[in-house]
């Protein structure tokens, strides 16, 4: 044969992957997977999962695997920018870091010296809240938060106030043992890879996976059963499951009396100031009714409590066990499967069958592990017995204005089944569980010039006294968090900040300082209105929000609306601490944390934001950031990571503390700490001993060790709360009791929604306007291969999701005379947006949906204005409103009335076919953004090859 491909093909079988490999932590999303970055001649050759890493165990998702294109994206900002044209014009001048720091310091110093509240410091998808929150408190402004308020605070608050831990990424199913797994409203989550790995493990073991979700894609696609629920009705569905379990007596009584407040006695004194509070003894301990001894402290070791009935205390007060009140509510006809079936969009028999299935696994197939352990009453148990039914939930539940109560209801369901942190059930991830509520109230009262706030800005109110309100009930915070509008606004309400700042409600601000949040686009509930607020001018032609500082790493839609741009590094170029003080990488197997180390040197004039913040702190003289002589306390961010101590011995990283690195959790700073992390693959983890691994809320060994490690303040039992006393305290205030009471216009609202037991109500937005013209629910889902807006500048990811369509049930479309690929108007009470239709089988027929954040504003991200993202991609945000429909009195956020969680998924729309001349492009199509100066050219053909000449 003259030529022979097989013979002459030169295959380099054993070429080393690169010439260097470094470990660090991925940040193509917030899942914190460990990565190994192979470099070849200083360029990234290959990024792979770190097989030793506890989060991802070697796997990488679609985004993480595309990191090369994020690192080399032409959309990376090049240097600090100062606005020189009108806001939004995109006219910037490149400036030096010196000048940028001077400008920022000037603005901030003025604010701090006059009224620190006038700094609103809001950060987005970062994982450095332990630094940013601390910095804000040092600055002295209560106006700090990250993205949690528009993200999933309903999950956080619902969990932390109920079981002392939460879904989100703070808990996980017992992937190794669960036999039945029910997952509510999850498309991707922050635990992306662990969930995928876990689902596969469950399925390979033959466990049943049930997904409750209006849409059947992703995790729902691999579920054994898909429950295509109607959005916003999960609470009804869950409470109907509870109804069934109670009715059939499929309830784990032992679990309830041991680990929950089911036996605690609730005072029944309608109209009285103590109504609904727990009856307590002289020491303040809640009481229970012991069968033999009557009312005694509920934590008595040999308690034999009565869970139902009504009793009279010695002082004459009438009391009932919390369980009784709970059972009474859910056994009511309102929550019978028949009563909820139609609203949930499923037959009653199905609800009953699912309840029976769950009960069957929980009670007929309990799981016993031969692991002895000791409970908080000092009793040794030879085995750990669990109910192998696990639940998980995320934004499908939380992004509704009834999400807090729905989430609490789900936790109550878990308690009734005895399925919290037991073998086979849902488990806390360290550092959870934490006391309920986990800490003192939020800092923020009495902000004064040049004075730090003591305590945490984002913290945990226990009652009205902890709220951040003026005497007349006016919010103290710009976003109204921790006010009567959102008493448990634990994560702030970023979705209201810009609108309130523009309106001066409750006051005008001077500087809006944002980090890593694309607020002029996909993270705004109403981008065009947000842009209006950012560019609004007063009568003198001054901007209503006088200064906007923004740190982004890329040319996002928000960049043109800032006055000063502080360009950040990429995730491969900087140090980061994924800290136990913020959102660590702990798992149910034990606590852990991680770092990022720079693996690539920036080729632009950019600086890591954390470093900039620390320097700003020093320039402003914030006490924690300067030495006694006023000179900077920290050389750089690594110096801060190693040497900053929040409390003696407690710093950003928990591993290798103490001078010789032998201590965990608490210990003196160790100058070699970062090197020890690097040597270990950039993470630290502590393995819990087997006897600590379950029942952590009542496991004496675990609680003692967790206290020693600084994870919790005391080693007391963490009693799960079916009946929530903090909520009842808010309710009592609304009923006219106590010193701090809601203003008149919010009384009824607080009274209604601060219910100590979960209940279901129609989403607020739907209650407040006539939904008849808007028959369809509209929701979004995260695409697995795209991270919000920031994947569109990635040349590979944008090929997977370059544009998005509106998905509708085929049956529904046919009934409406619509066909696949039709262009349609999606109209809500707030406006309309144009999209192209896709039809599918697996979607609730009353629901339409689309992929989130694919639509881009023309010109942004260094995409050509003709790019599909701008022309055909669309944002559902254009038809979402950040405010509830017009009502009398002050406007209220379109949010959960308890937590302030943005209610993205309460949206109702109508869909109509476009006129023939309207097809082809989306609408609104705001003006093309101007590219900042000195951005790189974009190639017509990309030939990336780290090993070749052609790159």
């Amino acid at each position: 044969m003259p030529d022979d491909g097989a013979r002459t093909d030169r295959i380099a079988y054993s070429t080393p992957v690169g010439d260097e490999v470094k470990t660090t932590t991925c940040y193509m999303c917030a899942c914190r997977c460990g990565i190994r970055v192979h470099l070849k001649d200083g360029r990234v050759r290959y990024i792979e999962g770190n097989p030793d890493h506890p989060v991802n165990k070697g796997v990488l998702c679609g985004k993480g695997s595309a990191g090369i294109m994020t690192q080399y994206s032409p959309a990376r900002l090049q240097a600090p920018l100062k606005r020189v044209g009108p806001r939004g014009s995109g006219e910037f001048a490149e400036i030096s870091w010196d000048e940028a720091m001077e400008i920022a310091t000037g603005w901030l110093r003025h604010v701090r010296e006059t009224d620190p509240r006038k700094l609103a410091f809001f950060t987005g998808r970062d994982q450095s809240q332990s630094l940013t929150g601390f910095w804000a408190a040092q600055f002295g402004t209560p106006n700090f938060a990250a993205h949690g308020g528009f993200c999933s605070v309903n999950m956080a608050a619902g969990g932390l106030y109920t079981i002392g831990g939460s879904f989100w990424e703070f808990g996980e199913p017992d992937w190794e043992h669960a036999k039945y797994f029910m997952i509510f409203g999850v498309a991707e989550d922050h635990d992306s890879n662990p969930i995928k790995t876990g689902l596969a493990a469950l399925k390979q073991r033959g466990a049943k996976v049930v997904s409750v979700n209006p849409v059947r894609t992703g995790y729902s696609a691999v579920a054994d059963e898909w429950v295509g629920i109607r959005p916003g009705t999960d609470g009804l569905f869950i409470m109907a499951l509870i109804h069934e379990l109670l009715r059939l007596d499929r309830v784990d009584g032992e679990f309830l009396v041991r680990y929950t407040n089911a036996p605690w006695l609730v005072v029944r004194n309608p109209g009285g100031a103590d109504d609904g509070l727990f009856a307590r003894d002289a020491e303040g301990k809640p009481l229970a009714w012991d069968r033999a001894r009557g009312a005694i402290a509920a934590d008595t070791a040999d308690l034999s409590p009565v869970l139902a009935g009504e009793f009279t205390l010695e002082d004459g007060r009438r009391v009932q066990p919390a369980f009784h009140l709970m059972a009474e509510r859910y056994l009511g006809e309102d929550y019978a499967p028949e009563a909820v079936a139609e609203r949930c969009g499923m037959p009653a028999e199905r609800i009953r069958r699912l309840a029976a299935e769950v009960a069957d696994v929980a009670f007929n197939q309990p799981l016993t592990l031969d692991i002895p352990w000791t409970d908080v009453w000092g009793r040794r148990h030879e085995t750990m017995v669990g109910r192998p039914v696990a639940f998980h939930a995320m934004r499908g539940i939380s992004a509704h204005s009834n999400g807090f109560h729905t989430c609490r209801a789900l936790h109550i369901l878990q308690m009734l089944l005895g399925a919290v942190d037991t073998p086979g059930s849902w488990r806390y991830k360290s550092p959870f569980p934490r006391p309920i509520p986990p800490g003192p109230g939020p800092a923020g009262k009495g902000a004064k010039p040049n004075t730090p706030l003591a305590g945490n800005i984002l913290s945990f109110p226990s009652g009205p006294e902890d709220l951040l309100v003026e005497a007349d009930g006016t919010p103290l915070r710009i976003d109204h968090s921790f006010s009567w509008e959102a008493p448990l606004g634990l994560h702030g309400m970023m979705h209201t900040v810009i609108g309130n700042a523009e309106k001066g409600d409750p006051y005008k601000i001077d500087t809006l300082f944002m980090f890593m949040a694309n607020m002029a686009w996909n993270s705004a509930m109403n981008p065009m209105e947000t842009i209006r607020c950012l560019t609004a001018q007063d009568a003198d032609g001054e901007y209503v929000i006088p200064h906007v500082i923004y740190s982004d790493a890329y040319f996002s839609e928000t960049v043109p609306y800032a006055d000063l741009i502080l360009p950040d590094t990429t995730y491969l170029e900087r140090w980061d601490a994924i800290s136990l003080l913020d959102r660590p990488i702990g798992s149910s197997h034990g606590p852990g944390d991680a770092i990022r180390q720079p693996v690539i040197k920036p080729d632009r004039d950019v600086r890591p934001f954390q470093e900039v913040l620390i320097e700003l702190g020093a320039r402003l003289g914030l006490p924690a950031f300067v030495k006694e002589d006023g000179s900077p306390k920290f050389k750089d961010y690594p110096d801060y990571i190693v040497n900053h101590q929040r409390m003696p011995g407690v710093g950003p990283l928990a591993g290798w503390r103490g001078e010789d690195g032998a201590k965990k959790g608490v210990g003196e700073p160790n100058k070699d700490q970062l090197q020890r992390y690097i040597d270990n693959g950039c993470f630290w983890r502590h393995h819990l001993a087997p006897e600590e691994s379950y029942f952590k809320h009542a496991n004496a060994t675990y609680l003692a060790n967790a206290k020693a490690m600084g994870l919790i303040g005391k080693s007391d039992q963490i009693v799960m709360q079916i009946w929530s006393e903090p909520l009842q305290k808010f309710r009592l205030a609304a009923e006219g009791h106590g010193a701090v009471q809601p203003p008149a216009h919010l009384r009824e609202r607080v009274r209604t929604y601060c219910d100590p037991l979960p209940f279901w109500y129609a989403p607020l937005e739907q209650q407040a306007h006539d939904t008849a013209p808007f028959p369809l629910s509209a929701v979004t889902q995260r695409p697995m291969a795209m991270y919000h807006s920031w994947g569109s500048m990635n040349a590979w990811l944008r090929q997977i999701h370059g544009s998005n369509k509106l998905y509708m049930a085929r049956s529904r479309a046919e009934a409406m005379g619509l066909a696949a690929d039709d262009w349609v108007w999606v109209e809500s009470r707030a406006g309309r947006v144009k999209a192209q239709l896709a039809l599918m089988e697996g979607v609730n027929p009353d629901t339409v949906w689309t992929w989130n954040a694919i639509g881009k504003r023309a010109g942004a991200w260094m995409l050509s204005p003709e790019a599909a993202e701008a022309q055909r991609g669309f944002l559902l945000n254009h038809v979402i409103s950040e405010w509830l429909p017009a009502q009398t009195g002050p406007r209220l956020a379109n949010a959960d009335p308890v937590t302030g969680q943005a209610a993205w998924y309460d949206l109702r729309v109508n869909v109509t076919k476009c006129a023939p001349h309207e097809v082809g492009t989306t609408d609104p199509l705001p003006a093309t953004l101007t590219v900042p100066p000195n951005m790189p050219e974009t190639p017509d053909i990309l030939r990336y090859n780290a090993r070749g000449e052609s790159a």
Partner: protein
Amino acid sequence: MKPAASVIAFTVASGAGYGLLFWLALLRPLGLVPQGAWFGGVAAVLALALITAGLLSSTTHLGRPERAWRAFSQWRSSWLSREGVAAVATYVPAGLFFLSIVAGWPVLAAVSGLLAAAGAAVTVWCTGMIYASLKPIKEWHHPLVTPGYMLFGAFTGAALLAVLAGFWGMDGVPAAIAAVLGALGFALKRAYWRSVDATPPVATAESATGLGSIGQVRPLDPPHTETNYLLREMGFRIARVHAARLRMITLGGGFVAPALLLALALPVGGWVGWLLLALAAVLAIAGMLVERWLMFAQATHTVTLYYRGNA
């Protein structure tokens, strides 16, 4: 399949060229076409020009035309390679044929002509087989495809020969052959379409994904939101009504009309007759372009099942 201009031009031109060469070589020794060196020379040159133009055009379809020589190596398995070998090999007797016509060596002309005719037939056969061997495309993987390539080459070649022969005033036999081939072409093409329309697809979305046991398979999301090479190359589609019209044009304009014109040209004779011949040839070639375009445009590739399902 995307109708690639270069490939259409190639098969039409080289098909006609080989057909012309074939009939010239067969009819000339039998004295059924003008015997002069001029006629023979011009006809042979036209044939070779068409063949060469076609082959050159086909190389523009290549991603790496400078490596085209490599295509001769795999004649043992590849019809494309065989076609290349046959095409090149045919140049030898064809060249000799031309030389001996011009030089007036009748025996050599007859022998080399027959060899060239055989080469032409083999080459066109190989061309047909390139298509007919492709299982993923039901419209190509069909027993009438290769005969079609042969017949249509022969038809257009004969029509061209008739025109040339008419110029020299001796057009009877080639024109008659062309007329008959036109009629046969009509029959074959119609039979082919009927058969192809009635043939079930080679595969379905259900078999392509293996998911048929669950139920009807419909695509939900494509792997990439923009198009790609495969879709551009294999995903070309033409509207049914449009195709039906083009089929009529092919049958009527490409076969029936030329055949009638050829048949009419014989009794009419003279320069009017010759004009009719010329018109017939132009129509036949134009019809062939449409036929070849349709051959691509109506061909469906199994890969589209992955993108569009059975739609």
